[in-house]
Structure formats: structure tokens, C-alpha cells
């Protein structure tokens, strides 16, 4: 008697969403099963892996990341190097230098970087803001304009600035709009509704529902994703059927397990290995919970997570 399992295929599916243009464009979503449940139905669009660079300057990167970009002097150099790395399917540029409490670079300066990077690489682009909602409203709107025709993802519109970001990115320049909520399922849904009411096509929205590093309240991430996928697939809730993109890198490269030096924590061993494994294990958990794309920083993490996805799909 063979093993017979009831199919877990749903009548609803996650939206398909394309980022970028041409041969290198990537498509997220489309599945009508839970993450990697290929035994229930085939998953046409495997989750995608992107690499993150920032404009914040090499000296602020962890030592092991600096090593990966040896010889790079500008953000464009880094972008080119990153784009050539194995397994990288899209490039994420984080404009952290815009933070008014940090380097406070001008919007013009940052948009120029965006333009230069866009000219240098043909991979699909994700542009992340500096996490200051006022500055991001302006910055991401201008970036959307600068990237006209690239079908880029602007990450992200938040509750406080969705009107500005949504109008520029979603309406004026037809880019993909990221909707960011921090591990809050009701807000995730609300932002999608608000963006749709603004006129942004639901098929052009990606959700960043947030993540935590492994060990740092990750249970909230798990349950938020589990419940979003349940609502989207089993309740056919169209306001939650947007693919999920998760910037893992910006979370994990801040926790002490990843960055404490070996000198400080001799029994923990080399920092680089700890950072990579923190990034890999967090990203793997995000993916099996429901991320349709993850953004990583270390090239070794990219290689491993790409391989993991290939093996699972």
C-alpha cells in the first residue's frame, strides 16, 4: 500500500511579480502551495536571492565583507563586483547615507549614485531607503524617477509615507512598490489596502513584512508569515497575496553573534563564519516560512542559499 497524501494545493495563489527588464528580469510568486511544498503542486518561480550593497562606505562594513570587495573604491565598483558574484539574481542598494542622524547625504547625491549603479549593472534593482520616513519619501520618489523604465523595486513605502512613495513609484513611474510593515500582520494587510486604494496595482506590490535574526524574536516572524500565507491561500484574501521580499542582511549583520570579534569572544571562533551562518540560517528560516526573495550581504551566504533553493524546488 503506497503512501497517499491529500494534496495541499489551494484554489488561490500568490501574485506573480516581475522585477527588472530583459533577460535578467526575475519573477516572484505564482505558487498555490505553501513554501517549497512541491509535492502538492509544482512551484514555477523559485524564490530569488539578491545581494545588498550600501553607500555607507567600506569602513563601516564588517571586516569579512570588506574583504569581499577588495579593490573597490566607489559604490559603482561594489555594484559591479556584487553583480558578478555567483548566485546573485538581483542587486539591492541601501541608501543608508541619507539618514539625517547619520551621514545626511543629500537626495541629489544619492540619486546620482542610484543612476550610476543602474548604468553599471543590468541586474534587477532594489533600492532601499535610509529608514527615516521623511527622507525616504523624497529619496525613493526621486529614485523611482531616476530608474524610469527599469521596473525596479522601491523598498519601501511605510504607513507614514506610502502616499508619496506609492504615487511616485507605483503611479507615476510604474515601478514595483515595496510595502513595509515590521512583523505586524494587520499593518501588512492595511498597507496593501491603502496602496491599492491609492491606485497602485496590487500586482505591482511586494511586501517586506520584516524579519528578525535567528534567536531574536524570530517566532513573531514565523507566525506572521504562516498567517499571511494561510490568509492568502486558504482564505483567498487578495489583500495578502503579494509576494514577500525579506532584507535579511540588514538584520543579521548587527547582532553580536555575527559581529563580535574573535578577540572578544575567543570560544566562539572566527567572526566571519558566525556571520555567514547567522545569515544563512535566518534566510533559510525566512524562506521556508514564506519569503519569495531574500536579500543577503555575504557572497558565501548567497551561494549557499541559492543552492538550497535549487535543491528544494
Amino acid at each position: 500500500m503506497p503512501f497517499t497524501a491529500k494534496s495541499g494545493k489551494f484554489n488561490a495563489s500568490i501574485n506573480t511579480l516581475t522585477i527588472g527588464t530583459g533577460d535578467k528580469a526575475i519573477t516572484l510568486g505564482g505558487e498555490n502551495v505553501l513554501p517549497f511544498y512541491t509535492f502538492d503542486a509544482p512551484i514555477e518561480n523559485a524564490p530569488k536571492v539578491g545581494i545588498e550593497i550600501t553607500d555607507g562606505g567600506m569602513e563601516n562594513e564588517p571586516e569579512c565583507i570588506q574583504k569581499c570587495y577588495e579593490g573597490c573604491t566607489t559604490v559603482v565598483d561594489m555594484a559591479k563586483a556584487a553583480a558578478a558574484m555567483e548566485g546573485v539574481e538581483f542587486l539591492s542598494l541601501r541608501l543608508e547615507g541619507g539618514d539625517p542622524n547619520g551621514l545626511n547625504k543629500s537626495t541629489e547625491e544619492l540619486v546620482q549614485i542610484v543612476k550610476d549603479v543602474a548604468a553599471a549593472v543590468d541586474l534587477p534593482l532594489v533600492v532601499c531607503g535610509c529608514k527615516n520616513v521623511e527622507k525616504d519619501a523624497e529619496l525613493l520618489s526621486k529614485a523611482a524617477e531616476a530608474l524610469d523604465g527599469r521596473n525596479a523595486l522601491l523598498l519601501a513605502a511605510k504607513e507614514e509615507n506610502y502616499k508619496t512613495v506609492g504615487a511616485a513609484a507605483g503611479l507615476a513611474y510604474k515601478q514595483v512598490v515595496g510595502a513595509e510593515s515590521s512583523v505586524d500582520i494587520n499593518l501588512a494587510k492595511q498597507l496593501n489596502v491603502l496602496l491599492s486604494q491609492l491606485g497602485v496595482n496590487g500586482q505591482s506590490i511586494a511586501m517586506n513584512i520584516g524579519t528578525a535574526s535567528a534567536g531574536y524574536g524570530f517566532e513573531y516572524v514565523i507566525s506572521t508569515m504562516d498567517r499571511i500565507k494561510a490568509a492568502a491561500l486558504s482564505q483567498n484574501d487578495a489583500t495578502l497575496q503579494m509576494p514577500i521580499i525579506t532584507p535579511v542582511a540588514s538584520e543579521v549583520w548587527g547582532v553580536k553573534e555575527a559581529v563580535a570579534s574573535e578577540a572578544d569572544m575567543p570560544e566562539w571562533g572566527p567572526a566571519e563564519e558566525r556571520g555567514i551562518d547567522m545569515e544563512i540560517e535566518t534566510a533559510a528560516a525566512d524562506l521556508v516560512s514564506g519569503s519569495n526573495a531574500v536579500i543577503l550581504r555575504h557572497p558565501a551566504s548567497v551561494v549557499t542559499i541559492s543552492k538550497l533553493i535549487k535543491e528544494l524546488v
Partner: protein
Amino acid sequence: MALKGLDIFKLSPKKNCKECGSPTCMAFSMKVAQGAVSIDACPYFSEDAKAAMSEATAPPMKTIKVGTGESEYTLGGETVLFRHEKTFVSKTRYAVAVCSCMDDAEIDAKLAAIPAVDYDRISERMFVEMIYVNYSADASTEKYVELVKKAAGLNRVLILGCEDPEAAKAALAVCKDSKPVLNGATPANYEAMNAVAAEAGVVLGVIGANNDELFDNVAALEKLGNKNMLINACTDSVKSAFATAVQFRKAAIKDSNRTCGYPSIVNVAKLAKGDAHMQAALASVFTMKYGSIVVMEQMGYAEALPLYGMRQNLFTDPQKPMKVEPGIYPINGGDENSICLTTVDFALTYFVVSGELERSGVPCNLIINDAGGLSVLTSWAAGKFSSSSIAKFFQEQEIEGKIKCRKLCIPGKVAVLKGELEAKMPGWEIIVAPREAVQLVKFLKDMQ
């Protein structure tokens, strides 16, 4: 799992004879489902139907115990697929693999490395709980038995990865009292292995080349009367291992397929094929998706720190907040002259705040109050993080005797406490810190 009235009704005689005291069979079924009457009140319910009912009300997944004493672990017994439905009850346990095919130096190095990872995180001991001792037909049974003895010296639960009944018998002779797992019942040897496991009184691990073969093998062993088993996720590919782990769990919980209701072993050491980063990724995947035991090639701090943290998160009870021990936590070499910051004992708050303080590089003392494991605003609203509770805590812990510095930073979210604290804690300068932890680095640096 409780049966719905409808399921009972389907099995009922549907005679509406009223002999049970209910007006209809449907009303009777409803009362049985509610537990208000016993099924025996109906004289016409067939024995087959009763057997089908008791089968259907048995727990969907068996609870299996391995090991003894302090090293006894409970596996399985889960009733849900997602943690927001109900707390997962049995944590994933990790094993490190050794093999009789290795030379002595390699074996000694592997075994010596196992105790290296052993630390506490939020009142939970994090260490490798099990050792997977693999038998190789290329080495002698004597060598295998010696290896088992050596591994047993580490006081972990042993999993004997052995498909040879004679070798298994010899190994069990030296370790069966510690309740190891005998992992190696294949379709070819299951009868002999079942006899060996039964005689030694140990849990039997079941293997199949694919899900069909695995299912048949479990069913065959159940027919021999064995219900004390673990199932091995297939190891031919990551995809099929994932399919076993998920599909068997799902079939057990959702479709009440009892033959699938056993805890699982996932051998990620085999699946990763020597790629250490891949092994880390797979360990995370199978912790999330239903591995009861995950077998690794090695467990160093790099793999362990995120993995054990993830496990701790995944298996928390959503109703119970994670708490850290209240007290003084010196950071960046903080001493009695270093500035003090105080906050609540909610684990997430502690981790985020201590992480930012470490990033600042500024020596300081983080004083964690007893605030019921709630977040800053919640505990403040509940009166568990108030000026009087903070003042009382400082007194009870005799903090003034331990620390000379009299500067105390309070979370920006409870800035309202400043005045009251200054009144209740004379001599202290109360400083309002930022509302968000991420602003702490700048705040501390600016203050210097």
C-alpha cells in the same frame, strides 16, 4: 483529537429507536461528541464502528521517549502544523555523527569537539544532546562496539545507525540501559531489527528509499506490534527529505493517518555532502519543518548560535513571554563607576538593548528589572515597571552598594517616570534615554 458529531453520526446505526434516551441518532451523536453520554448507551453501535472511533480519537502523533535520567528526551506528540495554532511541545534535538569507518584520531577529535558547545541562553542549556554512531560494514563489529562505548562516555543519547542486526545486538549489549535509538530497520531487515530492538527495549528507527517504501515499512513493523518508532526522512535528496518531513507530519495531524504519526530523524550530515554552510542551512530548514532529531556532521559555535536561538524562538509558548534573569549585566567591561541603564526583563528587549549597548563600545551597567517578562510599555501600563517598582528593585538588589556611579538612564518610552524616580531615589541623576534602542549608540557616544 475530538471527533465531530458528524463523524460519529456517519458511523451510527441511524435507526432513531430512542433506546439511548435521545430522540434521534443525530442528537445522540452530538451528545457523544460533547462527551455528555457514552457511546455504550447505544445498543446498536457496531464493534467495528466503536473501534474506528477509538482509533480516530487517539493522539495524531506518538510521543516517544529516548535516553534515561537527565538525558531523557521526549520526541513528537505534536498536535498542530503551525506554532500560532498551539505551542509545539517537543523541541528538535541535535546529534553529531561519528562513524566506525573513521580512524581513531578522527573519532577522538569528533568526540572531543562535541562538549565544546555548551552554554545557557534565557535559562535554557544549549548543547549537543545526542550522538549518532554510524556502523560501517567495512569496519569490524568489535571496532563499532568500542566506538559505542567511547561515545557513551559523553553521556548523550546514542543513536545507533546500524543496519546489521548482529552488530546492532552487540552494540546494544553495551549501551541498551541508556535507552539509545536503534536506527536501521530497512524493508530488507525489518523483522530481524524489530526483534533486536524489542529484546533490548529500545526505540527503532525506520528507513525507506522513498516515502512509499518508508510508509510500508512502518506499517509492516506496526503489524509486528511495534509502536515505538522513529521515521527517517529520505536521504537521496534535500527535496525528498523535505517531502518526508512535511508530508508525514501533515498526514498524521490533518488526515489522521496514524502510520505517519511518529517523530522524525533528518540526517542533514548526509544531505549536505560535506558542505558546512549547506549543513547550517539545512539544520535551520529542518528545525522549522518538523525534524525531531537533526543529525549534523559537526556543531561549532558558528552553526549553534543561530540554530539554538531559532529553536528557542520556535518552541516558545505564545502565551508565555520569554524572560531573562533580573540583575546587573556589565557591558563592554562596565564596572562600579560606569553609567547605569535600566529596562525590563522581556527577553527581546534585553537582547535588542544589550546588542546596541555592546555596539556603542561604552562601558556601562544594564540593570534588568523584574517586570514580569513584559515589554516596556506593557509592563509600565501593568504597574510592573513603575517608579516604586524600580526603586524597590534597586533596594532589594542592593545596587547602591554594588555600583558607585549615580547616573541612571531610563527608556524614553517611560520618560514620565523621571520626576517620581528622582523623588524616590535620592542621589541619583535620572536621564531619559531615547525611545528606540537603535538610537542608543549615538546617545551614549554623545554623552561621553
